[in-house]
Each structure stands twice: as structure tokens, then as C-alpha cells.
């Protein structure tokens, strides 16, 4: 815990986790400021919101109201800061581009890299807060031997968020506190009650925050309509692994590797998306066996808890958030790319997702699957 009198800026979303972070730090007698990031204008793309209201909307007025209410209960200074422009440029547009290029993006990681641990850190520093704290479930500690900050998985495996945090740098980690990394969710809810926070019973958010009801294809279409830009058509053929045409699809961005639904093709054995090819606008489908891969290449690798290793190392790799980390051998191809060879083939290796490397609960680093 920092010892200085400088306040700690807590990124408050209005949810239970960040509210408890603010409450805990304040209970320790540390000066705390609450900041809520306004990332997406909820008045945009109104066509996506059903009359009954949407779930999981980013920066909804209700969430800001909750964050402000929590701050007032705690008696801490509180402000909303507008990062909409940067968020659209660094998160929303790459998210859309990825889908149109046949990749399956992770906007949360981009948001962490470019917004929460970049612009937010800068804003916090600007208002006099050298350190920030967030409600992420991850543990960070300083390792004297290596002279590095190291990140470990949350002790609550169901809540662990390290998969989304592999892109952080040493400089960012040096200024960041994750007070919930050593807690389990039920304990956090208990603390919320104990601290008298009015959000103790609030639901967890699950979806991509700016995409109402998780319908990202509808979001992409609405975004283009709003901007009056016509995008290149992505509709095309559904083919099997031999290139035989099996049917048509409404757009490659509706599909992700491993997806089974929405293909509109009846077969005795289940069919899965093996590949979406933006260039030919084809969606390649096949059986489960066609989805298995024994290796992958990850680019733009960031080494987090260790320096870039010289030779091959044994690691466990997660290829999506819900994936059970698989044993593999990692070899550096160059300064920014690595090759991962799995001991057992893995299902649905998806371009655009991250490959995050672990040594047990230690987060070694990660990169983007090519």
C-alpha cells in the first residue's frame, strides 16, 4: 500500500467490485477519489435498445448514479471523466475492424491497454493521484529478486481477470492496486454489505459493455448506419474444408471460430465454423476434428512477470477467457512473436483472441493469436 498523502484514484463503474475497492481503501485511512469513465454515449445507436431497456450497457446513467451514490455514502470526492473519443478510436473501431477482417476481438483487453491503464492513469496523475486502484480480480506484487512487478491469478478462479490484463507494462503495474485479487466474490459482496454500500446485491456485468444484449453484429451494422458509411459487403458462401459450397451466409462478421449456431445448413453430424476468410468472404465449416490445432503463433507479445526468455520454456496457455490453460512449449520467433506448441491439440484457436502464458498462477505474458 502506498504511504504518501497523495490520493488514490479508484476507477468506479457503479458495480460491487469497484465500490468495495473504494470502501476498503478508505477504511484503511487512505485518501481516495472516485472517478467514473464515460466511455460510450448511451444515447447513440438507440435502435439497438429494445423498448424494455437493454442489459449490460456501458456508462448507463443508472451505473453513474450508483457510483455517485456510493461515493457520497463513503464521503469521497467523485467525478465523471469523458474518455468517449479515445474509447471509440482505440477500442470500438478496432473491435469493428477485427470482426470485418474475420477476427474475433477482445475489446476489454484493448480498453485495459489504452484506456484504463493509460488515459485513466494519466488523468489520475493530472489531478494529483499517483496511484490508481481498480476492481479487477488479479494479484500484483513486487519481486525483489527479478526487480519486476509480477501478476498472479485471482484466488477466485471463477472471477480471475488476468487473461484481459496481459498487456500491462511494468510502469503501469507500479502505479496500480488490485485490492480484490486476494478475495473471492462472495467475500466481496459481504464486504459491500459490511461497508454499507448500496450496490451489494447488484448483478455482475457479463457482456461487452458497449454492445447491448451481446448482439455485436447488430451493433456493427447500426454503427455503420449511424455514421452514414457503407461498409464492404461481407456476405458470401459457406464452404466445407474441401472448398465445396454448402450454402450462403449474411456476413462473415456474424461468425466466429467454433461457432455452431446460425449456419443454416442441416447435416447429420454437427458443423462448426473453422475459419472466416475476409478476403474471399467465405465461411469455412467442418466437423469438430477440423477445429483442433496443435500450435499457434502469437504476435505483439508483452512479457509481464518475466523478461523475454532466451530459449524455449514450458508454459500453460489460455487461448480464450473461459479456456482451461493447456500445457505447451513456447519458443520466441523474434522480439514480438512466439510459437506455442501444445502437448495436446486445442479446439478453436481463434485469430484476434489472446494467447496468455502462465506458470501455474503466475502470468508470464501474452500476445495476439495470428
Amino acid at each position, binding site marked *: 500500500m502506498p504511504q504518501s498523502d497523495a490520493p488514490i484514484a479508484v476507477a468506479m463503474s457503479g458495480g460491487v467490485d469497484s465500490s468495495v475497492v473504494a470502501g476498503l481503501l478508505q477504511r484503511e485511512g487512505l485518501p481516495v477519489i472516485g472517478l467514473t469513465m*464515460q466511455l460510450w454515449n448511451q444515447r447513440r445507436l438507440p435502435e439497438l435498445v429494445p423498448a424494455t431497456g437493454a442489459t449490460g450497457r456501458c456508462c448507463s446513467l443508472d451505473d453513474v448514479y450508483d457510483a455517485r451514490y456510493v461515493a457520497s455514502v463513503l464521503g469521497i470526492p467523485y467525478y465523471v471523466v*469523458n474518455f468517449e*473519443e479515445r474509447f471509440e478510436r482505440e477500442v470500438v473501431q478496432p473491435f469493428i475492424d477485427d470482426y470485418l477482417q474475420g477476427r474475433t476481438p477482445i475489446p476489454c483487453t484493448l480498453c485495459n491497454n489504452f484506456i484504463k491503464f493509460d488515459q485513466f492513469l*494519466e*488523468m489520475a*496523475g*493530472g*489531478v494529483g493521484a499517483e496511484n490508481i486502484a481498480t476492481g479487477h480480480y488479479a494479484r500484483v506484487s513486487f519481486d525483489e529478486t527479478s526487480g519486476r512487478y509480477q501478476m498472479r491469478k485471482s484466488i477466485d478462479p471463477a472471477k480471475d481477470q488476468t487473461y484481459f490484463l496481459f498487456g500491462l507494462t511494468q510502469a503501469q503495474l507500479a502505479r496500480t492496486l488490485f485490492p480484490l485479487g486476494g478475495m473471492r466474490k462472495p467475500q466481496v459482496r459481504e464486504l459491500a454489505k459490511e461497508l454499507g454500500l448500496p450496490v451489494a446485491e447488484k448483478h455482475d456485468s457479463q457482456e461487452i459493455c458497449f454492445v447491448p444484449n451481446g448482439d455485436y453484429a447488430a451493433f456493427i451494422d447500426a454503427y455503420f448506419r449511424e455514421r452514414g458509411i457503407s461498409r464492404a459487403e461481407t456476405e458470401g458462401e459457406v464452404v466445407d474444408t474441401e472448398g465445396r459450397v454448402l450454402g450462403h451466409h449474411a456476413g462473415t462478421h456474424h461468425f466466429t471460430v467454433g461457432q455452431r449456431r446460425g449456419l443454416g445448413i442441416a447435416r447429420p453430424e454437427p458443423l462448426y465454423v473453422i475459419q472466416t476468410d475476409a478476403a474471399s468472404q467465405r465461411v469455412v465449416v467442418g466437423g469438430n476434428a477440423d477445429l483442433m490445432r496443435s500450435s499457434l503463433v502469437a504476435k505483439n507479445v508483452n512479457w509481464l512477470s518475466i523478461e523475454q526468455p532466451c530459449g524455449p520454456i514450458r508454459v500453460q496457455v489460455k487461448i480464450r477467457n473461459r479456456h482451461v490453460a493447456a500445457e505447451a512449449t513456447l519458443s520466441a520467433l523474434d522480439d514480438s512473436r512466439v510459437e506455442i506448441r501444445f502437448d495436446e491439440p486445442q479446439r478453436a484457436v481463434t485469430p484476434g483472441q489472446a494467447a496468455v502464458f502462465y506458470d501455474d498462477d503466475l502470468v508470464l505474458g501474452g500476445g495476439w493469436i495470428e
Partner: protein
Amino acid sequence: MYFDHNATTPIAPEAAQVLSDALQTVQGNASSVHSGGQIARLQIENARRTIAASLGATPAELVFTSGGTESNNLAIFGLLRALPAGPKHVLASSIEHPSVLECFRRIASEGMAVDIVDPADLEGYIRPETVLVSVMQANNETGDIQPIEQIAALVRAHRAAGQAIWFHSDGVQAFGKTPVDLSRLEVDLYSISAHKIHGPKGIGALFVRKGTPLAPLLAGGRQERGRRAGTENVPASMAFACAVELCGDADRCPKLRDRFEAQVLGALDDTEINGRADARLPNTSNLMFRGVSAEALLIALDLKGMAVSTGSACSSGSIEPSHVLLAMGRTKEEANSSIRFSFGRYNTVEEIDALSDAVIVSVRQLRKRMPRENRLAAV
């Protein structure tokens, strides 16, 4: 320390006393026939006389409202609703307050011809079917004073030539800070508000020059000569009148503002005044600190106990770039680097000096995070 008087002002102790006393002593409904009602009637009419006199208006020309927003809505919608059907065109300046601009946008969405233009270009946009021109007297964000005498004369000239055309001016920021004499200034409709001049919130007025058509927006009573239904807020009108009487030369004194600007502009480079240095409200200073996030500066100052403002807050409370600064030709980056300081009657020289110090220190700290070459490159 409070430097956000264009948002609202602390109520004058005298006005607060009047309000508090009146809440207990003036209980009647001013429309009632009995003696309790008569006392209330007497008080609100006294208040109306005081405020009208300060404007150079007659009491019958003053309609009490709930504040500036309602006055602007009543002026715009009330006039249009009172006019006979037929093709109409309305005109407003691009730097108007949202309570004017949003009325015009609604009118446009309902199909009427609307132009929102630079105040300097106004003349060229008046058409034969133009029925309303709306230009504020002084801008809330920069304090810029608009040439409303000329605009009023222009509108009068069109009317003299037989055109059915009226001129509304939003005087919410100017009233009390710069002399206003409606017996000479030929506006037809003029909006004012109490809480901008150390009066209570929740009361304002619309000046409606005799003979100007105006239909009420609220139905349900004949109050305010049939122009604004609803039980009169007598105690607030009394406190409003008290606040008007307290407005004196002190509120027009530019000394504090000029001291602040001299200190800050003398100490910081890449800092500019937004607005016209020659014709500004004497209490308003809108400064652009190139390369500095106004949002961060506002928070840093607030954490030091100093209240200032920037842009316009959106519904969540975060800041959006000011439409006024954009309309004046500032870029989005420049608008997002601009802060409004607005001073009031109770600010002291010591407070101004403390503010200057805090601004200079905070801007330097924020700029240290962004070296000058990046700052200039970002423009």
C-alpha cells in the same frame, strides 16, 4: 471558494432573509379574494414593480416564470403559438443557451424553417416570412456581449416595412452585470433569472413588450394576465426583487477578473482568452490552456476547494466540448482545454490571488506530463 457564478450564485443574505420571512408571513394565494390573498397580491405586485423599474419596463410587461429556461421557452413557443397559421421562419444565433437552441431544434423537427447562424451573419438570413429572431445579450460561457442594439434596430426596420417579426433576447447572464434599459433597447421579449444575481433558484421573469403576441404554455389558470398559469410564487418574487435592488456597481466591477487574468496570463505561456476582450461581461473569464485537459484541471482545482466550470455537463455529469467555443472557431482540442471562471459579488482579492496561484501551479503540473512539443503537435 466559488468561481462559477455564471452557473449560479450564492443567495444574498438579505434576499435569503426576505425569502425566509415571507415563507412564514405571506401565506396567501395571490389570486384569492380574502385579505390573506390580498396581502400576497400586494407583495408580488410590489416585487414586479421593483424588477420592472430596474429594467425600464412597466409592471404589466413582466411575467414571472420558474426561471431562465422557462422564460426562453415561453418567449419562443408562446410567440409562435400566438401567431396565425402560415409559412414561418425563425432565426437564432449559434451561441445561444441550450434552453433556446433546444426550442429551435424542436421547432425544426416539427417542420418549420429554422436557421441557427453566427450572430455576425444574422442580417443576411432574415426572410420575408421570418417571425422571430433570438440572440442572447451576453454569452454564459465567454461573457461576450452581442450587438443586440443593432439586431433590435434591424428587426424594427423590417417591422416598420410591414413584416410581422419580433426579437427575443436571452438576458439571463447580462441582467445585473451590465446596464439594461428596455425603454431604449428595442427587444420585444427579454428573459431574466433570479439565481444568477444572488437571488433564489426557481424564479425568473419574461419581459413581454406591450403589444407582443404571446400564448400561454401552461393551461389551468389566468395568473400573470393569462400568460402563465399556476399559483404565483410570492415569497420567491419578493426575494428576487430584493436581489435586484442589491445589484449595484460592485457587480459590474471588472477589477477582480482583470487582476486574475493579468496574473495567469503573465505567468503561463500558451494561454489565451476565449472571447472578445473588448466587449465581455466584467465577471467572466474563459481561458484556453493549450495542451491541458480542462477536465483534469477542473478536478485538480476542485480538490483544492475551488469551484470552476468547463463546457457543458452532459446528463452523466461528464464534460462535452462547448458548442459555444466550437461555434467561435475553437477546435475540439482547444475547447477541451478551456475553463470558465466567473466571479461574483462576494469574491475577495485574497480569493482571486489564491485562485491564480492554484491555476498556475496546476497548469504547470499538468503540462509537465505533456511536454510543450507534444502539446503543440497535438493541436
